[in-house]
Structures are given as C-alpha cells and as structure tokens.
C-alpha cells in the first residue's frame, strides 16, 4: 500500500460507481465498429439509465414483494462489493484477510435474489433462465475463488493476509518474470469467469431477442422502470469489478501513482474492447458446452495453485 497515502481509498469506489456504465458503451461501440455500423453514443448506457429511472412500473399480478426486493438487494450487494476492490494506486476502502471470500459471496447474495425474483413471476422463460444461472454459477464460483487464492498466494505468499488489496499492490514486473505462468493461468481463468458472470458471449448473449437462448436477460424480462435501471446498473458495476480484478492480476503496478492510475483506467477500457472483439468474432457456445468452459476455468485455477505451490 505504498501509494495509498497519496490517494483516498474511496477513489476506487468513486471510479467504479461513475464509470461502470461507460464500459458497456465501449463494448457496444467496439461491436458496432466490427459490424461496420457507427453504433450508439458512448454515453448511451447513461441515457438509458436516466430514462428508466424516470419511468413508472408494471408488475405482474403473480409477483410478491420478493420480485420487488430482487433488484434492490442485488444492487446493494454489488455496491457493497465495490468497497472491497482496489484500483490503480489505491487500496480498497474495506480490506481484511479473506475479503476475497466475502467478494465472491456478495455476488452470491445478488444472484440468490435475482433468481428468486425470476421464479416469482411464474413464467416458464424466467424459470429457465434461473435454472441455467444457478447451474453455471455453481461451476464458476470455485474457479473465481481458487483463481483469486492462487494469485494471492503468488503475490503475498506467506507474508500478509489473503486480501484483495495486498494482492493488487504486489503484482509487479518482477513477479511476471518470476511466476508468469501462474499469473497467466489465473488471468485466463478470471477472464472466463468474467464472461460467464457478466453474461457475455460465448456463454450468454446480452443482445439477443430470442429468449430461449439467454440466461441473465431472460431472468429480468418482467422488470421495468427503476427496477430495470437498478439491474442494468448492477450488471455494469459487476462488469467493472471483475474487469478491475482481471486487470489488477495482469497489469503490474507502475512506479508513479498518476501513471499507475492512467494505466489501470486504460487497461480496464482496453479489456472492454477485448470483450467487444470476443463478442464480435465468436458465436455463442451451445449450452451443453458452457459447463466444459467453466470447469476448464476451474482446472486452470487449480493448475495455477499447484504450480505456485511447487515454485
């Protein structure tokens, strides 16, 4: 935490809360460029959020308070997770030994309520999305935790506690020379988890209008107005957080804090471009293939841990 005194530890939270929707804009622009279109403005997600927040709401007669609580709890859990993630030269506002476990479980809380809200509509489509969501996330969770633990072990080893901030501050060029394979495996595993958790191609398609092929989008079919705004914003935050994690594993800390901040910001948006490229150049996987992808991510994380333990 050498630079922490120069920057408030609330910077990461402010960046995440303000810039997260911009990531969606960057991805969409990238995809538009690949498709030969000029695409929506970069700030379109912000316009969408403003419009949604200004609308009324329509609720299904089947639903109960659980349906209304779903987006609220999911966004609350995601915002709480923002407090745990460091960014650039700044440590996270809340950091402690084992915070990476809380990070993963906060996403679990968000998922629990999103799935419950989907089942509350009594719609076959949303039940289907919920079913797929819990299946894939049960496989993604070990990959996420083991990956984070592997890189925490590589960076801080026996010294500090297993905390995200410590992990983040200790990624350096020297470490890449030293344990590059471990970091590479973890980065790939976390990137696959990101694609699955944030419902991007090749796991899920955020744009399709064919409900049968979707996971996350089909779970929120019935939400509208401010509820949908919460969901869209929560999804953007989740994308930001997981991108920041991948970036903090891949990109070594720069010597100067301002440089570090610039590099980190550029890397996060660079990652958004990469996601856009992946989405433009790949088709969605068949659903039966997705578990193989996720188990593959978990295996990579385990391999990273094994490698780390024997170096």
């Amino acid at each position, binding site marked *: 935490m050498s630079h922490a005194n120069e920057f408030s530890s609330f910077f990461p939270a402010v960046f995440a809360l303000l810039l997260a929707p911009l990531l969606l804009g960057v991805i969409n622009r990238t995809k538009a460029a690949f498709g030969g279109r000029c695409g929506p403005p970069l700030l379109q997600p912000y316009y969408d959020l403003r419009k949604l927040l200004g609308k009324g709401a329509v609720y299904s007669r089947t639903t109960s308070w*659980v349906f209304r609580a779903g987006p609220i709890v999911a966004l609350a859990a995601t915002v709480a997770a923002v407090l745990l993630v460091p960014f650039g030269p700044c440590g996270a506002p*809340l950091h402690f*030994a084992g915070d990476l476990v809380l990070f*993963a479980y*906060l996403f*679990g809380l968000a998922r629990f309520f999103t*799935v419950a809200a989907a089942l509350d509509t009594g*719609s076959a489509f949303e039940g289907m999305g919920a079913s797929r969501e819990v299946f894939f996330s049960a496989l993604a969770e070990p990959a996420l935790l083991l990956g984070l633990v592997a890189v925490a072990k590589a960076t801080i080893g026996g010294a500090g506690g297993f905390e995200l901030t410590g992990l983040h501050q200790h990624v350096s060029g020297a470490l890449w020379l030293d344990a590059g394979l471990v970091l590479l495996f973890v980065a790939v595993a976390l990137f696959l988890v990101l694609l699955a958790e944030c419902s991007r191609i090749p796991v899920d398609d955020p744009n399709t209008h064919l409900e049968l092929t979707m996971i996350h989008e089909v779970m929120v079919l019935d939400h509208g107005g401010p509820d949908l705004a919460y969901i869209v914003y929560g999804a953007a935050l989740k994308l930001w957080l997981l991108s920041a994690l991948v970036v903090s594993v891949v990109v070594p800390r720069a010597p100067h804090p301002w440089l570090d901040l610039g590099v980190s910001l550029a890397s996060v948006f660079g990652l958004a471009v990469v996601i856009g490229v992946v989405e433009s150049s790949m088709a969605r996987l068949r659903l039966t293939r997705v578990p193989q992808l996720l188990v593959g991510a978990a295996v990579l994380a385990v391999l990273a841990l094994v490698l780390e333990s024997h170096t």
Partner: protein
Amino acid sequence: MSLLLLGLGVLIGGGLLAVVAGRWARSANALGAASAVAGSGIAAVPVAGVLVSGTPLPDFSWSWNVPFGAFTIGLDPLSAWFAAAILGLAILAAVYGAGYLAHHADRKLLGPPWLFFNSLVAAMLLVVAARQGVLFLMAWEGMALTSYFLVTFEDEDCSVREAGRIYLIASHLGAACLLLFFALFASRASSLDFTALAAARAAGRLGETLAGVLFLLALVGFGAKAGFMPLHVWLPEAHPAAPSHVSAVMSGVMIKTGIYGLLRALTLLGPPPAWWGWVLVAIGLSSGVLGVLFALAQHDLKRLLAYHSVENIGIIALGLGVGLLGLSAGSPALAVLGFGGGLLHVLNHAIFKGLLFLGAGAVLHGAGTLQQDQLGGLLKRMPLTGAAFLVGAAAICGLPPLNGFVSEFLIYLSALQAFREASLATSSGSVLALATIGGLALIGGLAAACFTKSLGIVFLGEPRTRSAAEAHAPGWLMTIPMLVLAAGCLLAALAVRPLLAGLTPVLAVVLDQPRGAIARGLAAAEGPLSAVVTASLAVLALIGLLAAIRRGLLRSREVQEGATWDCGYAAPTARMQYTSTSFVQPLADFFAPVLRTHKHVHEPSGLFPDAASARTHHEDVFLSGLFSRSYRGLSWLLSRLHWLQHGRLNLYVLYIALTLVILLAWQFGLGEWFDQCAAWLAARPTRLF
C-alpha cells in the same frame, strides 16, 4: 448443577403428567409443551452461566446401583455450548409443537408424544452432561429410543414404520461401535469415569494402534448419529417421517450430539496423528458435496432438508478436520480457526435448519403436502412463514449478511491459514487449502441452486394445485418460533464478538490449552470478522437506501398490474411454470454419474398421441448399492442357519439343556481338564498311531 437436575426432573415429570392427562387431549398438549418449555428454561440457567463465565461447574456424582460406576454429570464449556443449542431449539420447538399437535388432538393421544419429546430433550442434555461411560451410553440409547417413538408418531402410515425401522437399525449399529469403544478404552483404565479414561491416556497406557482403533470406532459410532456420508442413510428416511417440530430438533441438534461425542472422544484420546485429520477432511468433503447433490434431486421438501443436514455436517467435519491437522502439526492458529468454524457452524446450523424444518411443517400443515411440484405461490397465503423461510434459505446458503456466512468464513480462513502454515509440509498445506476452498465454494454454489429452487417453487410463482391455492397460514404458536429463529439468523451474524468470547473457553477444552493461547488465535479472526460485520451492515443500509430511492421515484408515477410477460403469450397457466424437477435438470444431468437419475418418460407419438408423462427418480447410491447389498448378503448368510429354527419345541428344550451343561462344565473347571487331556495327548503323539 441442582438447577440442571431440576430441569431434567421437570421435563420427565411434565411428560409423565401429560400421559396421565392423556384423555383430555388439549390439557395433555398444554401440559407437555409447558413442561418442556419450563424444564428447558430451568436447565438453561446454569448452561448460560457456564457459557458466560467460561468456568465449568464441579462434577456431581451419585453412587447408584447400576454396575460399572456412579451417576456422574458435569457441565464444562464444551457441554454448555451444545446444551445451549439443544435447550434453545427445544423451547422454540415445544411452542411450535403445541400448535402443530393441537390439530391431531381429535384422532391421537397427545400424552405419549410429549413424554417422548421431553425425554428426548432430557436424554440429549444427559448425553452432553454425562461424565461416565455407562451413563453416557444409557443416555445415548434413551435418545435413540425416544426419537424412534417420535419418528413413528404417524405409525398408521407404512412408509413411516419403514423409516422408523431403518432409523432404529442405524442407531444401534452406531451404538454397538460406541459400546466397543468404551469397553476397549476401559480395559486400559481403572473405571469408566471420563477422568479415569483421560488419566489412563495421560499415563501412556493407550498404544498408537489402540488409539487409532478407538478413533475409528468413535468415528463410526458418532458418525452414524451425525450423518457422515456413507452412514447418513437414516436421515432422509427418519426426518421426513417425524412431526416437524421433532424433525427440527432431530436435525438441528440431535445429530450434533454425534459431533459432541466425537469432540469429547478426541479430548479423551489426546494428541491426534495427522491421518485422523485427513480422514475427517475427506469425510467432510464427501458428505458436503454429495449431501447437497442428493438434496438437489429431491422432490419432497423435508427429504431435501434432511440431505442438507448431511451437507452441513460435512462442513462441520471439514472444520474439525482442519482443526485436527492443526493440532497434530502443533499449530494453534490453524486448530483454533478450524475447530472454531466447526463449532460455530454447529450453533448456526441449529438456528437455520430448525427454522427451515419448522417452515416445512407449516407448509405441510397449511397445504397438506410436501411435494414441491404440487406447491407454489405460498408466500401470498402464508406471508410470515414465507419470509422466515426465505431468511433461513439465504442463511443456509452461507450468504452474507446472515449467520451461515460467518462460520463458513472462519473455515475459509483456516484453509487460507493452511497455506501459510510453516509447520505443515508445503504440499499437504496446499492440498488441504485447495480441497477446502474448492469444496466449500462448490457446496455454496450448489446449495444456492438448491434453495432458490425450493424457495422459488414452493413459495413463489402461482400455486400448481388446488390444495396449494387454498393453503392457510399457521397460527401464532407456530409462527412466532419461526420469526424468532429468523431474527436469530441475522443476530448471530452481527453479534460476532460475544460469540467469539463464548467460543474461547469451549476451544480451550477441546484443544486442552490455556485460554490466553486460544484468545490469541481467535484474535487473528476478530479483525476480518468485524470487517465482515461492517460489510453486512453496509449491505443492510444500502438495501434500505435503495428501497427508499425506488419508493421515492415511483411515488408520483403510474404503477400498473398486469399478466406476466410470457413473450407475447397472453394466457399463461400455472402448469407452464418451471417445476423443481425441470429447474435442477441441467445440474442433475451434469452430475448424473453420481445421482443415478432414473427417468420414466412417455413421449407423445403417432398421429393421435395419448397423454404424455415424465417422471424422474433419484436413488441414494449408498442405500441401494452399499447397504441393501450388504444386508442381502447378511440375510443370505443368516438364512443358512434356518435349519436350527424348525419349530419343534422338544428340540429347543434340548438346546437349552445342552447350553446349560456346557456352561456348567465351563464353570466347574472342566475347561482345565480338557486342557490337560490335550496336553497329555500332545505329549504322546506316537501312541495314537
């Protein structure tokens, strides 16, 4: 100690009075429940005292006429920790039971179930308080028998009788191992008093091999009660059969007496070798992962909950295993975190599993069935039950800000500690951490799948059948205990400091170390746990804030109600909803090699298809493969002895006479005479030929 005995007396006496008052069902019901609450309340006073002060009560001994030793009971922090869970849940279950059994008043005697319930609570209390082998075994057997009679409460149902039979056999297989455990142990000690057993071990009279054999006996004996994986087969049979307040007590605390017994045996057996820890870790992982997988596939809500008890016992065993490894490696930090997480999970599981079983009872009471695919939309018909069930479901998945997360977090911390532990070999530390973290993460994800399923299918959406549509909410006697337990799920997560303070003396007993060393070990967890509390409070505050913003935004706007958007289809029916079977189908297919799913599908075919149907059924590999097969072998073996049992009375009398003659011959030293004959023959081998 006198209060503890008084509590036991009130429990038994009140139960007997309820039997006497049996003809007047309502008064028997009231009397039984009141004495259960009063007796447990009285006994809870000294228990709370021990937990708060951290000092054990002096042992109480009464030399009775039973052979092999006195009636010795004591209350140290370890006993008090389990007793607190037992008594707390017993009080709430008794209140709930008063409401639950009242509906059986016109067709059943209510005295006996209350006598058995009160005796069960008394027996569990005696199990954790006993300080002498014979007394312990008597209390253990009493616990098994009283709960057997409670399981078979609805004995007019054939499947309930079958469940009771399986339960009785399983408990006695375990009890046999315990009998052997105490007999073997006592052969090296002067008496069956626990102090004498511990002294014999301290004097080095247990060899390494004998200690290992004793550990395995304790593992099987206590594991059969706790529900360790291959021995779990009675749980999914017995728990659904019992009345719900009894299932709550059985699943919430009775199976924990197995954990208590294992811990007590470990304190008697002294410093463990590493393989004991590895065995427990392996059992924990297999029970945890397979328990939740089997749970996922269940159609019956209470069977699902029973399998989840197996899963949670697995998590507890995982914590204990990590703790044992820490103990054997001489690392107090690892031992404190592992045992601490396991013990905390004992308490937390009692809270949320008690809550979930009470909720399932309310569903059965209100809608008449526990088949999840026939329910739905119950949240609107029983709002408080549904809300409490939701809290319990989130807690059992280990989600913050509820109590399940705190104990699982401690076990995660112990696994992370294993990475850094210099005393463990690098490779074994890594294997341990990898297995624990990967296992817990997978268990957590699958548990979330399982409980979103039962919450969503049972309580949310549209009712799937008429009985679900006409379900009614339970009365206040049944509702209040559920609300108390739901509040407990949140409070136990936020009150981390008092819980850690209460855990310190308990761990001092388990690890046999001074309290200061334990407190230093726990201090490492205190910072992270306080931060978890901060984060939990942040989540709660954010929920409040976001809810207020949403309310403010929608205040002046139009909020309409309509049909569920079914992609343009305007007349969706309840039958189009996902069912519990279809919800878990992708997971069940993925894990098909373990789950052994049997599908009976009748597809529509031809030009004029008739009614189609699909049914799935999952068998428990261990019940169908391991136990049924070995019992078939056993019964084949025993059937070879059928010729002895022919029904001729005169020959039976001959058996008796022959046995007597042999025994007499033995008694009068004929055995020696035979020996001499044999020696004489051996000395002259040539003369025979």
